[in-house]
């Protein structure tokens, strides 16, 4: 069930260059059922900026009715969001979309989680849920530079974690796929969120593995009504197109035409 709720800010802090961690509380959290879903935020009651901002959910605490987002404040909307203080409210529409299927990994199996930049956050809740059911995880997290790295400690506490930076200022230099080529990890299923070229490279690197990819696109309504965020499909589905907001953002590998 999708709700609209004015949710209260519990915590907000900057955790890397331009990267903020924001925790909100409210009833809507109780309907967050799957890692990889997102919320659509209205950051002001005025017309400027006008549209909502889709932001992925990084972690969920049903008991405290809190959820946390990690986002990059690089536009008008996210900059306003980054200035929200404790006790202020944010207009939230959500939870939206279909997330990562945790049930696709069996207890005792190993899952490879690959994130790129602001695609890393939803993998955190996913990893927590996989571990809760006894799935091992290997985290490969790519960032632009050491200044942008976040949640290395949180992921490391859960399981094996590798950091990759484009400029080599931390961890392995290059792209996540460079590290994967060298390490050649053994795993049963992969989950990924990040830039489309990265998702495409993963599909090609592991043609025989079961995998789930989270996509992003500029959105209007966020609920499937406006047809702004459609993507082309492959012969693997009988659907002629898919909407990233409401059919996704997570799709099984091979379904979206890359």
């Amino acid at each position, binding site marked *: 069930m999708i709700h609209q709720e004015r949710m209260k800010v519990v915590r907000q802090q900057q955790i890397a260059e331009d990267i903020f961690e924001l925790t909100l509380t409210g009833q809507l959290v109780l309907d967050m059922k799957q890692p990889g879903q997102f919320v659509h935020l209205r950051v002001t009651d005025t017309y400027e900026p006008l549209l909502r901002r889709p932001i992925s959910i990084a972690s969920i605490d049903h008991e405290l009715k809190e959820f946390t987002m990690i986002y990059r404040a690089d536009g008008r909307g996210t900059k306003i969001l980054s200035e929200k203080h404790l006790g202020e409210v944010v207009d939230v529409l959500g939870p939206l979309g279909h997330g990562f299927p945790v049930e696709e990994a069996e207890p005792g199996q190993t899952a490879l989680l690959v994130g790129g930049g602001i695609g890393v956050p939803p993998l955190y809740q996913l990893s927590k849920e996989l571990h809760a059911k006894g799935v091992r995880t290997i985290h490969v997290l790519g960032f632009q530079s050491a200044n942008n790295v976040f949640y290395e400690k949180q992921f490391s506490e859960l399981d094996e974690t590798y950091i990759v930076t484009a400029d080599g200022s931390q961890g392995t230099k290059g792209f996540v796929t460079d590290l994967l080529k060298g390490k050649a990890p053994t795993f049963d299923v992969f989950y990924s969120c990040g830039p489309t070229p990265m998702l495409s490279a993963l599909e090609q690197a592991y043609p025989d593995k079961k995998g789930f990819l989270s996509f992003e696109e*500029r959105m209007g309504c966020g609920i499937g009504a406006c047809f702004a965020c459609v993507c082309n499909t492959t012969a693997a589905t009988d659907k002629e197109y898919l909407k990233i907001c409401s059919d996704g953002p997570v799709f099984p590998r091979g379904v979206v035409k890359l």
Partner: protein
Amino acid sequence: MNRLQVELPGLSLKNPIIPASGCFGFGQEYGQFYDLSKLGAIMIKATTLETRFGNPTPRVAETAAGMLNAIGLQNPGLEHVLAHELPWLEKYDVPIIANVAGTETADYVAVAEAISKAPNVHALELNISCPNVKCGGIQFGTDPKSASDLTAAVKAVSDVPVYVKLSPNVTNIAEIAKAVEAGGADGITMINTLIGMRLHPRTGKPIIANGTGGLSGPAVKPVAIRMVHEVSRNVNIPIIGMGGVATAEDVIDFLSVGASAVAVGTANFVDPFVCPNIIDALPQKLDELGYDKLTDVIGRSHR
């Protein structure tokens, strides 16, 4: 007495609030949030004879107090709309206005003839103003003769009243309005989006893959108000006004310049409850202004 009741050709509206075509799909998404029977009517997404995929992405870009879109009339095609989308809407007590689009006269006529026979379609909205498709659409909406001829052709086959949706991307909108009235239109809906462009600050290239897109949202309201004001003085058929409507005050403005009902577009994306919220706010707005009923407000700018 229902103070918000409005009677228009083919449409008995319990209130003047209609989600605009293209901003509400075929209703299913917003049906998750509230009972669609609450609405005055629903303008469903443009339907063409064949399935259309639409334009490449990115299809939207935000602008100051507005947005650009170039969806490109993506829709599942006439057959699917008749078999699935319209029957799904039958459970609601709400008249449907079917937005009809095409590439040439023959396909407008074919869609209009078939869709006008659906039991819950009470009126057609002839889309001669979509700025985002290469053929058809706006080329009919920018030439008075083409607009008039197409209106007449569709009127000849439609079982329900025909409203024509006008483009603001013209030099003289009153001239087009008079032409479609002469062609037999039962009403006018206006305005469609204004053609615009937004550049990527780093590359200097358009953000929208289509290059241009249609501007909508609060930013366009003054343009829409001016155009409804002008057209309402030049035609004797009713107008459904739209362009940046987000509040009950906006509705009053459109009625004041001569619209008889109002469509709400972009605001649905910002607040999925905007239509029921406006409907709930209208009686108090009438009280504040000292009017008994909504129809008393229509055209007060001209009196």
